[in-house]
């Protein structure tokens, strides 16, 4: 079962025990309802406790979980209509980023997000959610279009990072990300950025310059992959868990550092345990933000966004 996480272990043991007791009741007719209720409560509170206190490395596992809902899973649930628009009008349509027009609670928005695959074939088509420059240029084209029509922009971030390969370098991966950072900072329309899984470095940030920046409770966002940091520190990519614990990559760490504004709560066990519920919370977050941001003029929105980015960093 791919959805099992090792940190669910103690809970799973308890649940197994409860199941055994229930079988016993059925077989023998002995009344164990008190014990079962007690153990069930204990399991629930234990699970709650575990998920409230996940280690960074455990959150990393959840954020990368093969069943973790993807951008299209959420788009399907938060929009009443979605029209996907393809291509950068320059070189290609990068399937690692999807984007288009959506209606959220009657409001047209432009939605753009990294798209991971659901299975091996899908992942190959999506390049595991790692965009090439044309993906970022598609995103920028759609953002400029949104600005022209005064549509709010919602980005959903979920990528191991921008792809590292010959074509990506040849076609200017650095330039594409840089251009998005600059242009996003001055868009005269609301931008809401939400990290829904893995926020991998510059490749994530290239969709991440928002008036509001939020993360799902168990998502991560980091300057380098924990494997990458582990390689650099210890010449050993396998110590990623240890690296993760040093990196301050959880939503809880990043709200403290002033990098993000809000955390969107996940269902117990992670977003994939109840995709509809997670989606409804994301939708509520977006509509809540839009209510506040829609009162602002374009210049004010750009200025607010600039001031927000401008403050980031720590020094003496």
């Amino acid at each position: 079962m791919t959805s099992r996480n090792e940190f669910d272990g103690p809970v799973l043991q308890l649940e197994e025990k409860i199941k055994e007791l229930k079988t016993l009741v059925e077989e023998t007719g002995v009344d164990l309802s008190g014990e079962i209720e007690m153990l069930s409560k204990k399991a629930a509170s234990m699970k709650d406790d575990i998920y409230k206190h996940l280690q960074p490395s455990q959150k990393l596992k959840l954020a990368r979980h093969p069943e973790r809902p993807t951008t299209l899973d959420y788009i399907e649930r938060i929009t009443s209509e979605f029209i996907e628009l393809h291509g950068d009008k320059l070189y290609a349509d990068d399937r690692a980023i999807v984007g288009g027009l959506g209606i959220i609670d009657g409001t047209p928005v432009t939605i753009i997000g990294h798209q991971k695959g659901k299975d091996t074939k899908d992942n190959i088509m999506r390049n595991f959610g790692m965009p090439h420059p044309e993906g970022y240029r598609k995103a920028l084209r759609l953002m400029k279009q949104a600005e022209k029509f005064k549509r709010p922009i919602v980005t959903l971030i979920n990528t191991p990072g921008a792809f590292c390969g010959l074509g990506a370098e040849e076609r200017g991966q650095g330039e594409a990300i840089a251009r998005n950072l600059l242009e996003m900072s001055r868009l005269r329309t609301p931008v809401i950025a939400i990290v829904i899984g893995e926020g991998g470095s510059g490749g994530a940030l290239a969709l991440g310059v928002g008036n509001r920046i939020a993360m799902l409770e168990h998502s991560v966002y980091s300057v380098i992959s924990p494997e990458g940091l582990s390689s650099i520190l210890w010449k050993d990519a396998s110590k990623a868990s240890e690296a993760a614990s040093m990196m301050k990559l959880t939503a809880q760490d990043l709200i403290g550092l002033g990098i993000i504004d809000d955390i969107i709560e996940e269902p117990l066990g992670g977003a994939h345990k109840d995709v509809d519920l997670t989606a409804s919370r994301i939708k509520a977050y977006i509509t809540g933000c839009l209510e506040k941001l829609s009162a602002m003029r374009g210049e004010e929105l750009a200025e607010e966004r600039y001031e927000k980015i401008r403050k980031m960093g720590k020094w003496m």
Partner: protein
Amino acid sequence: MLKDLFTKKSQKSHHEKGYAVINVQKEKPADEPQEAPKAQAEPQKPQVQLDENHMSCPSCSAVIEKQALSDNLGVCPECSHHTRLGARRRIQITADAGSFREYDTIIRTVNALEFASYDDKLRDAAEKSGLDEAVVTGECKVSGQSCVICVMDSLFMMGSMGSVVGEKISRAVEKAIEKRLPVVIFSTSGGARMQEGMLSLMQMAKTSAALGKLDDAGLLYISVLTDPTTGGVTASFAMLGDIIVAEPKALIGFAGPRVIEQTIRQKLPEGFQRAEFLQDKGFVDTIVERGDMKDFIGKLLAIHSTGGELDDK
């Protein structure tokens, strides 16, 4: 005349035969660990110190007097290889004498993530580079033209960008907007500074946003790429110049060559990610040798100065 500069095929040594030259076959050092993420490539070996007065060229292995190399602006008089240059020296050879006024000398880096051994590394870097951080910012004149200038230094933690680098550059750009001056940034960097985690990553957005304001103000930004410029700096301010100039053969990329080789499991083609390659691929406007750089920047600044007037020949 300017056009002569750009048709000149290769830079002549400033000191022909004013130094001893011996060709030696140098042993390749084992791959060194990198300071910064994404900077896994170190394709130009650092100059090898032979004795107090001599070093060997990392490209052609010629033994060069250190003074001769320095007099030649750090360009190998034998093979025209452009060795890495410290920020202070870069300013010295770029700014008109006595014109440089430094900005933000009292801002200090903090270990906000309490990252293990970051304080030690900062101390080492300061000692090695003679700088407080990986960028020096200020204003100066270049061939009589005023500008704001930011110069990175690879001796300070491989020119990685933490909060202070991002903040100093953003402040310098804002100062340029205030004073209506053009901006020149010399980049050299291994990328983001992992010890500052996401605080480091956000400097990419911060510096890019500041340059967006500069653009809105109609002011010129000249980005000069020197060896190596990779990672987060390439994916932010380095690639946002109105005009992007590179030194010959400088390594410029988003991912470092070693990361790419690991990803694609094959050797990279000759010349990949070099300045000449980036010009072919459309991302570098022009390549200018170090000896011509000051003059070139001065011309660009003059062409873009208010009124746009420049004395004809």
